[in-house]
């Protein structure tokens, strides 16, 4: 892992029920073990019912604010394509975007009141940003558990953001139910390889 001064910020975005909170728990536990100060912020309540959800993680030698502002995230991990688009203004210039190309249609799209941006990845690429596109939901489903999408994305983050000196497998074991451990470890390996 590269050494740094100050604070790094990771923003996770998705749709209620996608498991953003589990990987943010694993990430913060890992950063704490590594000796960093860590803060993580999430919002519960109304947002759980299929709304957009965000989890913010900040780590470094000393962290004050638990939240990330516009243009301040070093990494954005999007569990859903339209959410990647929504979170884009939070990504720092030169930051990393890891996104699933998975689509979940919000109610206004289902009812025809709004259009889904199927070309989100192309539009994102036009900004000069090269998103790391991970077919995490698809990969997890192929492994037999669609819910392991989050762990595939964790694996991709560990590779892309160079976080390999933390014992993530041990933490996954600690945080996922025993019966789902095997598929989650496979999901992590799959994410690492992408």
């Amino acid at each position, binding site marked *: 892992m590269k050494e740094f001064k100050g604070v790094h910020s990771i923003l996770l975005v998705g*749709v*209620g029920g996608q498991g953003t909170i589990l990987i943010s*728990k694993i990430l*913060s*536990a890992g950063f*704490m073990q590594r000796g960093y*100060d*860590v*803060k*993580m*912020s*999430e*919002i*519960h*309540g*109304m*947002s*759980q*019912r*299929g*709304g*957009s959800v965000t989890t913010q993680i900040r780590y470094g030698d000393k*962290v*004050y*604010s*638990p*939240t990330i*502002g*516009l*243009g*301040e995230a070093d990494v954005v991990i999007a569990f859903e394509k*339209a*959410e990647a*688009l*929504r979170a*884009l*203004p*939070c*990504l*720092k*210039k030169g930051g990393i975007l890891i996104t699933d190309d998975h689509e979940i*249609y*919000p*109610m*206004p*799209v*289902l*009812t*025809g*009141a*709004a259009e*889904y*941006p199927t*070309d*989100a990845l192309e*539009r*994102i690429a*036009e*900004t000069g*940003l090269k998103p790391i596109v991970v077919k995490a939901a698809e990969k997890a489903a192929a492994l037999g558990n669609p819910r392991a999408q989050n762990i595939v994305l964790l694996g991709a983050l560990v590779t892309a953001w160079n976080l390999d000196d933390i014992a993530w497998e041990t933490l996954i074991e600690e945080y996922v139910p025993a019966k789902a451990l095997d598929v989650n470890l496979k999901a992590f390996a799959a994410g690492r390889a992408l």
Partner: protein
Amino acid sequence: MGEKQILSGNEAVARGCFEAGCRVATAYPGTPSSEILENIAARYKGDIEAQWAGNEKVATEIALGASMGGARSLAAMKHVGVNVAADPIFTAAYTGVTGGFVVVSADDPGLHSSQNEQDNRHYAPHAKLIMLEPSDSSECREYVMGAFELSERFDTPILFRMTTRVCHSKSIVETEDKRDIPITPYEKRTDKFTMLPVNAKKRHKIREEFLVKAEEYANDCPYNVVYENEGAATGIITSGVSYQYSREVFGDKASYLKLGLTYPLPRRLIKEFASKYEKLYVIEENDPYLENAVRALGFDPVGKDRIPILYELDAQIVRESLTGESAAEGYKANATAPPRPPVMCAGCPHRGFFYTISKKTDKIVPCGDIGCYTLGASPPFFGMDSTICMGSGLSTIIGLAKALRMQGDGRKALGMLGDSTFFHTGINSLIDVAVSGANVIAVILDNSITAMTGHQQNPGSGRNIYGESVPSVDVVSVARAVGIADERIRIVDPLDLESMSSAIDDGVAAEGPFVVVTRRPCVLIREVAKEFAGRYCEIDAEKCVGCKMCMKIACPAIAFRGGKAEVFDRTNCTACGLCAQMCKFEAIAAKGV
């Protein structure tokens, strides 16, 4: 001993309660406070007796009773819950305590999940309570432990004021072992706890005297801290999470007076700090609570003239307001993400009710309440004209019915609330509906659980917070008991559209009070979810004519693609069958086992 953990503010409060020897904890669930009691129940069973109360007033009184009996106790609630609990809180300030007694007020600046963003710091001077305001999880643990001690030392309940970002942010907490705090033997103290005017007069005097002592303490206590940075020309007075934002923005370039004990305010300390700096900022969320106090001392700080009074702050807002420096530039793509509002889940029983009433707007005026069903206010149902507070769904209709009658509007006022809200304060409203003979329809959407806040048990659930079987209260029996005759009560499955519709029609046709109870458990209840696991509806593309009737129920599992409707999300579809009832072409059938 000395173990490091990452905890949310709510988890840290639970931990602090455990370590401080708290014995009784109660709450009514409400975002962002709910996880305090859930964690106490899940982690410290045997040490702390946890109990969901029917509402916040009852929670406060249970905890006060435990304190009177000598046990350290805590009652937790969201900000608007304190309004409900204000009655016992104000008088408990006179009685004081025996065992330490803490009331948690979890405020929601930014209205993430609330009907208002009231700033409950004002309650502390109003009720004359000592107030503590933690700024992160570590302080949540430390302060709540201190709160029990301060409560006993100054013979007062403590207002423990948190905000959404403090409740739901996680940070590192160093925990220790539980302290051995003996329970104080119960002693009859009518002079202290029987608030007849003669006793209350004396207790008010004692309260004022204690407040003077508490302010002396506040001037020199571990909760109010000065961080001086050499050469800094700017002094910042702040509290709670605003301290974290201030420090993020100004770092070592300013000095800070970080206030953790914010009532009574340490006026001497504030004066000493404020007089040292050329530039004085008061940084706080929502109301100018600290700023007004600083102004009253003769200073002229920069505060709400530059920092927004609305919504929650963050580092960026603080930076922009005070330095004029705008936000860092992120990326901007030439495309817009569609809005993604929260919606009723696939299979949600409320959907059948809202579809039904959306077809009867010429006959009814619907009034709503607080819960998952408030989502029925959104398109395409537009299912409520009002939502005020817990219980109001069944009482606002009494007055509305009068006003409609006075203007010759023939529509019937229909009030709705959920089972938990009914038990919270809706029961009182229904009593008034019954005894006043109001010409209204009162609908209780009974899904057997407090769903919106994360499935807490309520008096109708038949389970307590530990999942143990307990007696349950039946909504229909309550309606009968308050005087609603059987012929004025309909019990329906809200997913059976025909019965649902005729129940509302019967209510419209009736004169006087009419009660409809919709009964079907929330689909997210684990045992319920097991029943339909693997089941889903399928739309036969051959038979689908693309009429979009099934889209009218706004189910998140159904999409309209290429001129046809399709159940695209089989995982979340519960085969509830509502879409099949909408389809005139028999194109939809339940599948799976």
